[in-house]
């Protein structure tokens, strides 16, 4: 994290009897670092270690730093913040670690301490507050922001910006981002706002509730649309609870655990009646399964409900794979490769299911991507907060994208944006798609062909 000193205020520490320099509520969990035997088997899995070669930017180093603060050897200060906030939350270390150390959980807890110790001030504080508190948790506002974006795209300002060279004046990463900005369409929640439940096409076999995601539903409404189509086509009644809200992943990654808990409670309540909660954004789905961690020390009366809730959450690709789906009959003749989103592969252990779905589409040829489960560098808003590291990670990801493919498929919108930036930046021309989108296209093509015959 490149944080200037003036952005940080040091609050007077409270008193505590132990050696520990974690002086705020919701402390990092000692049991998590007690599992770490310092073996180093996680080093090579870590993208930030690969780039820097420095231990404090490795999982083992981060765990050791976090432990050292508890041992009273270090304080919660800016030098501590650097490595803790440069972690991508990619969870590759969790897969690699033989002792099952929950490095990601520790990092998030440590970030909670840092944010309580050193609240963000200045413009960073304002920007973060605006996005995390005022925008994401409020679907209505997001939709309006989406509408603004839509206006921006439609009005010709976008074309003007792109033509006038204004782009050249923006910082590089923002400029690339602008060029891949998606076309905003109507959100699923708005589209189906009159219906409690979108009925299955044909006979109802199962009922599921759908987490639409906050940004996802506005910026990636196509994918949500496809998800509803695919689910209903395969005999699922799809409920879209109105009270649902942002999953809170961005808040928790940023160390704002209070807001994380607030959103978690709202979602737990919103989905109380559902038996299955389907998510199509790996980052959101993964966060939902981690709600119990938020109630480990605080508001523990919610822990059990959070655990029950977490058990109900499943990624759409795994849900379809396990509950059965119709194989599309129309061909989509394309050569593609699959990128494992961190929060799907490392976070939820879903690797084979999406690949199987893609291979079930007639005409799809899959080319193996080396290191497919290596982080792309998106990691929530990481590409905005740590542009330099994110660029390095993206570069090595793009080097692994096979030359001969037309599409890159994946199961997380954050990755889609980042990979689209990669395609743009490195002069490639692959199309970036969500796995479920591709399945939906195949179904649509099939319907069209049937209509013609």
């Amino acid at each position, binding site marked *: *994290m*490149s944080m200037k000193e003036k952005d940080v205020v040091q609050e007077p520490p409270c008193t505590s009897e132990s050696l520990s320099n974690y002086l705020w509520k919701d402390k990092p969990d000692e049991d998590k670092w*007690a*599992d*770490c*035997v*310092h*073996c*180093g*088997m*996680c*080093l*090579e899995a870590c993208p930030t270690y690969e780039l*820097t*070669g*420095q*231990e*404090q930017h*490795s999982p*083992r*180093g981060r765990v*050791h*730093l976090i432990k*050292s603060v508890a041992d009273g*050897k*270090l304080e919660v*200060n800016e*030098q*501590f913040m*650097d*490595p803790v*906030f*440069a972690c991508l939350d990619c969870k590759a270390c969790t*897969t*690699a*670690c*033989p*002792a*099952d*150390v929950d490095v990601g959980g520790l990092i998030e807890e440590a970030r909670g301490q840092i944010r309580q110790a050193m609240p963000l001030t200045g413009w960073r504080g304002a920007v973060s507050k605006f996005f995390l508190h005022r925008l994401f948790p409020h679907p209505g506002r997001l939709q309006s922001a989406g509408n603004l974006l839509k206006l921006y795209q439609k009005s010709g300002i976008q074309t003007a910006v792109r033509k006038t060279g204004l782009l050249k004046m923006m910082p590089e990463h923002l400029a690339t981002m602008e060029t891949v900005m998606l076309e905003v369409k109507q959100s699923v929640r708005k589209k189906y706002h009159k219906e409690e439940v979108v009925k299955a096409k044909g006979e109802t076999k199962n009922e599921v509730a759908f987490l639409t995601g906050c940004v996802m539903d506005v910026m990636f409404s196509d994918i949500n649309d496809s998800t509803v189509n695919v689910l209903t086509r395969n005999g699922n009644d799809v409920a879209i609870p109105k009270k649902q809200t942002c999953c809170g992943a961005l808040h928790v990654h940023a160390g704002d655990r209070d807001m994380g808990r607030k959103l978690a409670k709202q979602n737990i309540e919103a989905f109380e009646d559902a038996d299955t909660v389907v998510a199509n954004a790996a980052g959101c789905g993964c966060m939902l399964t981690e709600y119990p961690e938020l109630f480990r020390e605080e508001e523990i009366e919610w822990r059990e409900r959070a655990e029950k809730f977490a058990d109900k959450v499943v990624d759409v690709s795994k849900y379809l794979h396990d509950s059965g789906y119709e194989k599309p009959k129309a061909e989509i003749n394309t050569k593609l490769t699959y990128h494992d989103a961190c929060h799907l592969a490392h976070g939820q252990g879903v690797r084979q299911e999406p690949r199987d779905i893609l291979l079930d589409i007639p005409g799809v040829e899959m080319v193996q991507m080396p290191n497919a489960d290596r982080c792309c560098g998106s990691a929530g808003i990481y590409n905005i907060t*740590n542009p*330099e*590291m994110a660029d390095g990670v993206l570069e090595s990801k793009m080097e692994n994208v096979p030359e001969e493919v037309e599409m890159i498929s994946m199961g997380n919108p954050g990755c889609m944006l980042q990979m689209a930036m990669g395609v743009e930046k490195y002069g490639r021309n692959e199309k970036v798609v969500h796995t479920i989108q591709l399945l939906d296209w195949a179904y649509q093509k099939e319907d069209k062909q049937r209509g013609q015959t």
Partner: protein
Amino acid sequence: MLRKKGLKTHDKHIKKLAAIVGPKEILFHKEELISYESDGFTIHSHMPKAVVFPTNTEEVAEVVKYCSDNDLPFLARGAGTGLSGGAIPLNGEVIISLVKMKRLLSVDLENRRAVVEPGYVNLKLTNSISDKGYYYAPDPSSQYCCTIGGNVAENAGGAHCLKYGVTTNHILGLEVVTPTGKIMEIGHDGIPDAPGYDLLGILTGSEGTLGIVTKITVRILKNPEEKQTVLAYFDDVADGSQAVSDIVSAGIVPAALEMMDKIAIEGVESAAFPVGHPKDIEALLLIEVDGISAGINEQINEILDVCKKRNVRSVKVAQDDEERAKWWANRKTGFGAMGTISPDYLVQDGVIPRSTLPEVLKRIGEISKESGLRIANIFHAGDGNLHPLILFDSRIPGQTDKALEAGSACLQACADAGGSITGEHGVGIEKREEMRFVFSDKEIEAQTDIREVFNPHYLLNAGKLFPSPGRCAEVKKELKAAE
């Protein structure tokens, strides 16, 4: 994120070192250094003065020369997976990290060799030549992460070293920066039996006390035509150990012959790569044979027969590469897996004559009872290389000391059985006192004399490998501090 702020320090040495490697390639803040206070051996720790990341041999030589001229202690570090504390900066060393020198420089299939930089990770070599049908044989369980430079320093072994030999059998040439900063090439393009002293032999396994390795020429091998792997479960440890002896006596040279006992199995099964081993068995053997296809099946049948004769509960052959890989991942992550059943572990590394396996294992069982600490065994049974893993909790006062004592007792048992105190993990800090179990004062002196020739100012990795009379008091003090 890489530190953005400029170099803020008044320390003239740090400024000079930064001038050599560049301001971004040096760490000196407490928060950055603390991750370097220990390696895979966590009982000792000490803060370094700084960590530098040279990117080429000349920079290494310059850093070394600067340290040598200015009386600054220094040492080399690879991935820091060492298990005997070899990379711990006991004297507040300047750590020279080799991880940025991580290129594969050349592969020469015709002459079966490859040249790598010291920070190149072991497994990457095999991965980058496997499509051409070649591999690099030494396969320490830490091969996913450890560096070949570190392997040379520790003369690392691995599961498949039973048949193919340890690191030293695969090193053809080295480029070394001497402790006074000179660059030296040893080994001449792999010409066997070069005249003069065998410097390659002395350097390999010298635990980073004679020089810093900056380039390595290794031997690579052609993939065996065929491979078969057997997994056997025993209800009695003695039966398992006897089977090991029988297999070798039958004239079979397995590529690997590994053993795990009950506690070890409990660990690996509750960790990240479980296989589904039954929890109530006392020992398992993992046996691999490889070579030309002809004859492999006969060897496998013979192994199955031996196991049956030794009352095996059940035994099976891996059906495909996937199953084999699963068994190996379970075995190779065994040490780390102990984290799931114990907060800390101390791994010992003794070697014994194979025939004494049952009696030494029994003795280790007694040591466990005496100390009140659980001891798991995961080891290279084929070459009698034991790894007792002593499980303890450093947060409980006195346990660290007890673990160290138990570890030392295990090594004594190995030495008593006619064996030695290290097979592959090195002596480092951990076993310098135990060197006395196997060497007389004179023998130790002969070796420290050699060190003096290479390392005259004793600034490179001091306090490792050998006990020194003056240091005994310090060892005790450190043990106290560790508690």
